[in-house]
Every structure is written in structure tokens, then in C-alpha cells.
């Protein structure tokens, strides 16, 4: 979708710094300048490993926390200018663990009805009951689920209820923070398919956050890769997945174990070229430490770094078409003989 229409959700230079955890500690930078545009009706998949800031981004976007700097714009207006209920009617959140995000004491019907009544999506209890049945059907749950409590459901069912609850407010945008990570493989497939269907049926826009590249690929129109509080690559899903420009994206893709046996780890004398020589700095795990250094945050682990990388942070720039990367050597293939990576594997992708 290359419509020039205004993005339905936009973030501009978001920064989030948390105060030190203890007196001796340093403040930690969870987000170091994140901008994004979510086009209406599309899904932006945000992928990254632990500590990259993606969950912080989710919390800022839905207004659970305020940014240290930068703004979030919802349909052109700053998020902070909305009153809570107004914001809730436009933008909703689905979290990772439905058993934590659902009130354990409320039945499905109570939980959904509450949303419907607070946001005046129905007139009165009777309409609410009918609408609850509609919502359950939308998420493929039978009407018998209306009287269930969360602990009387499986993980997949509970997550469907959480989605129904978010939809009850009739938002246009859903922020999904790892909604499938706590679920079994077959259950996950169901939720992914459900989310894909809902997006087209209800003309929703999604910001889908996950550490799972394969799931992100399944749903996203655009994919953004985060590392140490920033986007390091972003573009149409096909480009990012098949022609990754940033060495970290390549490392991520190379590290994902594909469900197709290809003998890479089985038998054979290879293996040494792929391994790290040490395990000290792990990606994104200490953005605070990373943020203390100048230059590109990935540089210490990057197999193709040059001197400039260590002193100047590369900006996120268009490299080709709509595909951006924050790398001075974007697109340069990584050869096995390059400067030893400290992690992530030297990929064979050209």
C-alpha cells in the first residue's frame, strides 16, 4: 500500500530513559530515538531480541508510560492530548500472557460487557449480551465461553478472549505485544490466522511486536528490526526477509532454526565458522551499556565493521526503494573470513 495518506499512528524521535535501579547504577536508555509510521490498514511488524526496547515502545504507544522525549501521534493528534477513554476507543493493546492480562475474577461476559458499557458501544445490558456473543464468534469461541472464568480456559482460548476484549472497544489500531509467544505451536497458528483475518475483516491497523521472525513475517506488510533501542532496518516484508541490509538482520535470520532439516548442525566437520569465540556481549541485553558507547551499537559484534562505525552512529536511511537501514555498509555481504563476530554467526547469505 503506497497511499500517501497520513499515517494512522506515528512516532517521532521517541526516547525513553529509566532512572538507575539503584543508587550506584546508571540510567538505562530503553529507546534511543525511535520514529515510525503506521499506514492505515497495514501491519508493521517490530522484531528484536530481549532488551531491544520493543516492549517499551508498546507501552509508550498505548500511553501506559510517557516518553522522556519525542511524541506519539494518533491520527495526527498527540496521544497525550487524548483523554484516556477517547484513546481507548481508537487504540488497544493485546499482551503476551492472557492469564495475567485478564482479570481472574471476571467472567468473559463481565469483562467484555464492561468495555462495551464504558465506551457506550451498546445501549444497555440486553444489547451488550448480544454484542458479547458477536465478539465471541468473531474470535471463534462458542457462546458457552461467556460464563467462563480465565482459569477455566486454555491459553489459546484465553488469548482469544483478550483479543475480543480489545475489539469490544472498537479501536482502529491494535498494538500486539508478543501475543503468541506464550502459546503452543498449533494454538499459535490459530491465533495468527485469526489476527490476519480480523485485520482484513475489520480494516484494522496493527503494530505487531515479537521476537519470532517467522511469525512476524506471516502477518506483516512492513518489518522493522530493533536493536539497542533503535530501528536498524525497516522496509517491506519481502525485502527485509529476503534481502536484509543490516548485518544484525542477517544474523537474526541466519540464527532462526528453520523447520526444514538441512544438516547444518547435524554431523559433519563444520561448525567452527559459525560459532562465536566468546559469549560476553549478547545482543540487546544491556542497552544501557551499549548506549554508553559512541557509534553504532552493533559495531562491537559486527563482522564487517569499519572504523567509522565505532565513532559515528549511522542514521536510518533509505537504501533502496522503501527499504531503510542504519549501516554504513548496508547490503555488503558478510564473508566467512571477515572480522570475527562475537555472536550471531557469520552468515552465508549473500
Amino acid at each position, binding site marked *: 500500500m503506497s497511499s500517501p495518506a497520513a499515517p494512522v499512528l506515528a512516532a517521532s524521535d521517541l526516547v525513553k530513559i529509566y532512572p538507575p535501579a539503584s543508587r550506584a547504577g546508571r540510567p538505562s536508555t530503553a529507546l534511543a530515538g525511535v520514529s515510525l509510521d503506521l499506514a492505515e490498514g497495514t501491519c508493521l511488524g517490530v522484531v528484536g531480541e530481549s532488551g531491544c526496547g520493543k516492549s517499551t515502545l508498546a507501552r509508550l504507544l498505548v*500511553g501506559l508510560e510517557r516518553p522522556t522525549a519525542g511524541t506519539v501521534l494518533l491520527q495526527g493528534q498527540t496521544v497525550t492530548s487524548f483523554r*484516556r477513554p*477517547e484513546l481507548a476507543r481508537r487504540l488497544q493493546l493485546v499482551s503476551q500472557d492472557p492469564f495475567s492480562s485478564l*482479570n*481472574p475474577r471476571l467472567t468473559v461476559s463481565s469483562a467484555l460487557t464492561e468495555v462495551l458499557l464504558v465506551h457506550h458501544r451498546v445501549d444497555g445490558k440486553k444489547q451488550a449480551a448480544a454484542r458479547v456473543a458477536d465478539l465471541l464468534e468473531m474470535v471463534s469461541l*462458542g457462546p458457552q465461553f461467556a460464563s467462563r472464568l480465565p482459569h477455566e480456559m486454555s491459553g489459546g482460548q484465553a488469548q482469544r478472549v483478550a483479543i475480543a*476484549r480489545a475489539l469490544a472497544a472498537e479501536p482502529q489500531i491494535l498494538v500486539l505485544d508478543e501475543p503468541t509467544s506464550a502459546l503452543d505451536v498449533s494454538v499459535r497458528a490459530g491465533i495468527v490466522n485469526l489476527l490476519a483475518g480480523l485485520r482484513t475483516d475489520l480494516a484494522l491497523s496493527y503494530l505487531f511486536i515479537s521476537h519470532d521472525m517467522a511469525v512476524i513475517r506471516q502477518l506483516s506488510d512492513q518489518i522493522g528490526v530493533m536493536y539497542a533501542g533503535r530501528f536498524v532496518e525497516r522496509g517491506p516484508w519481502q525485502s527485509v526477509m529476503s534481502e536484509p541490509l543490516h548485518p544484525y538482520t542477517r544474523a537474526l535470520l541466519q540464527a532462526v532454526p528453520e523447520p526444514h532439516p538441512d544438516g547444518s548442525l547435524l554431523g559433519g566437520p563444520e561448525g567452527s565458522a559459525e560459532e562465536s569465540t566468546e559469549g560476553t556481549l549478547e545482543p540487546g541485553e544491556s542497552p544501557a551499556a551499549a548506549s554508553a558507547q559512541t557509534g553504532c551499537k552493533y559495531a562491537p559484534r559486527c563482522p564487517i565493521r569499519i572504523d567509522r562505525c565505532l565513532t559515528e552512529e549511522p542514521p536510518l536511511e533509505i537504501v533502496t526503494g522503501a527499504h531503510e537501514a542504519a549501516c554504513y555498509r548496508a547490503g555488503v555481504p558478510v564473508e566467512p573470513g571477515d572480522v570475527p563476530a562475537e555472536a550471531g554467526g557469520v552468515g552465508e547469505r549473500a
Partner: protein
Amino acid sequence: MAQLAAAEPVAVIRPVASRRSLAARLWRQPSGRAGLIILAVMVLAGLASLAGLVPDNPDAQNPAATLRGPSAAHLFGTDQYGRDVLSRVMAGTVLSLQTALLAVAICAVLGTVGGVAAGYFGGVISSVVTSIADLIFAIPSILLALAIVTGLGDGWQNTAIAVGVSYTPIFIRVVRGPVLAIRNADYVKAAQVLGFSRMRILFRHVLPGVGGILAVQVTLALGWAVLIEASLDFLGLGPPPPAATLGLMVSDGTNIAGIAWWNLAFPAIAVVLLVLGFTLTGDGLRDALDPSTANN
């Protein structure tokens, strides 16, 4: 697509017991059952006394029948003024119960308001509330009660106030913890994102989680209140003679225990039964509310 969910079996191993009423669950706990039975007996005795269904007027003195041991006419014997001990014990039970109820009403209300304010709003409010609680807590309850009773007089209501105030810090603490924990729970954050008002979140999502703990604490507090009230009466800080308070009866009974054991024994047992009844019920409630016991 609705077929998908219809085919799924209802979870079998998950606890369904939580749908049973709290009273039913309480009865299933051995401690709860024992506690409730004891309390039932004591409350019945108290109610009977209030209705006048007593063997004798608790205040009626009978110089001709002083210090008689337990007999058919006087099941618990008589005291040094010839008063029927059973009737006095029943009257004393009423007094203990009403004092305890008033005391706990005071501390429960003050403590819950304080604890919720501190836990939910945090910040300055929390600091102020916990400081007040610590201040009260630092003063030994008997001394505090002495001060209050000396200032306000010796009626049973004042004893109740004394007991209530001294127990308030405990309520504040007991309530604040869960409120704080629940406030940070994911479903409360979800409620915020869902656009609910702070009041709605407080009353509909946070407080229900605290209800159980509150019920347990109220029950335990009642037992504690009975004990402290009896102690205050024992020390002479409660309603003066000829009031039939259990504490006074124990105090008097102690002096003549050698020759008339029934004057000490029966009031003392009454106190013990009251405290035990409340404590056992409180324990039973706690177990009944514990999700891990819902699986039996």
C-alpha cells in the same frame, strides 16, 4: 470457525471449586468448621442473654448463696455476691462481642481506607499513612488503651475505641500490600489501556482482590480484640463493677481461685473459646481462599 471451539473439552483438571460459595468452602476446612461451631455456641449464648433467656439476673445478688459450687440451680456456681456465674458469663460474652465488633469496625474502616490510599495512590499519601501507622504501632497497645480510657472514661465504647485504634496499623499494612501488588498486575494495566477511570479500576479491579484478605484479617482481629478487651478489663481499665465483663470476672476469680475455682475457670474458658473461635475461623477462611486448596 465456531466449530473449532465447540470441539474443545472443558478443562478437567482446572479447579472448579472456586465456583462454590465461600461459606461452603469454609465449612470444608477443618479449622473453619471448628471455629464456626464454637462461635455459633458463643453467639447463641450471647443472644440468649440479650433476650433475657438467662437462668438468673446477672446482677441479682443473693447473700444467702455466695460461693456455691456448680449445681443444678447454678450450673456454673455463684460468685462472692451470690450472683449466678453462668448468667454473668453469658452477659460478659455479649459485652466482649459488642466491644470487639465496634473495635474491629473502627480499625477495619480506618485501616482499609488508609491501606487502600497508601497502596493505590502511593507517593506522598503512602508516606503519610505509613508514618502514622508506624507511630501508632510503636506505642504498646496496653499503654495506648490506658491513655485513651483515662482520657475518655471507662465505658465499653471507649475500650472499643482504644482497641480499635491500636489495631489500625496492622490493617493498614495488611491491606496496603495486596493493593500495591494488584495495582501493578497486568490486568490492572490492561484496564488502564481499556480506558477505565481510576475509580472504576480501584473498585472493580483492585478491591475485589483484597476482599478475601480483608475478611481473614477482620476475623483474626475480632479474636485479638476480645483478648485485649478482656485484658483491659482485667487491669481495671474497662467498665467498672458491677459490670459483668469477662475480664473483671477473671480478675476477681483469680483472687479466690483457691476456694472457688469456678469463678475463675468459666469466665476464662469463655474468653478462650471466643478467641479460639475467631482465630480458627480466620485460619479456615485463609485456607478456603487459598487457590491451592481449591483443588480438593
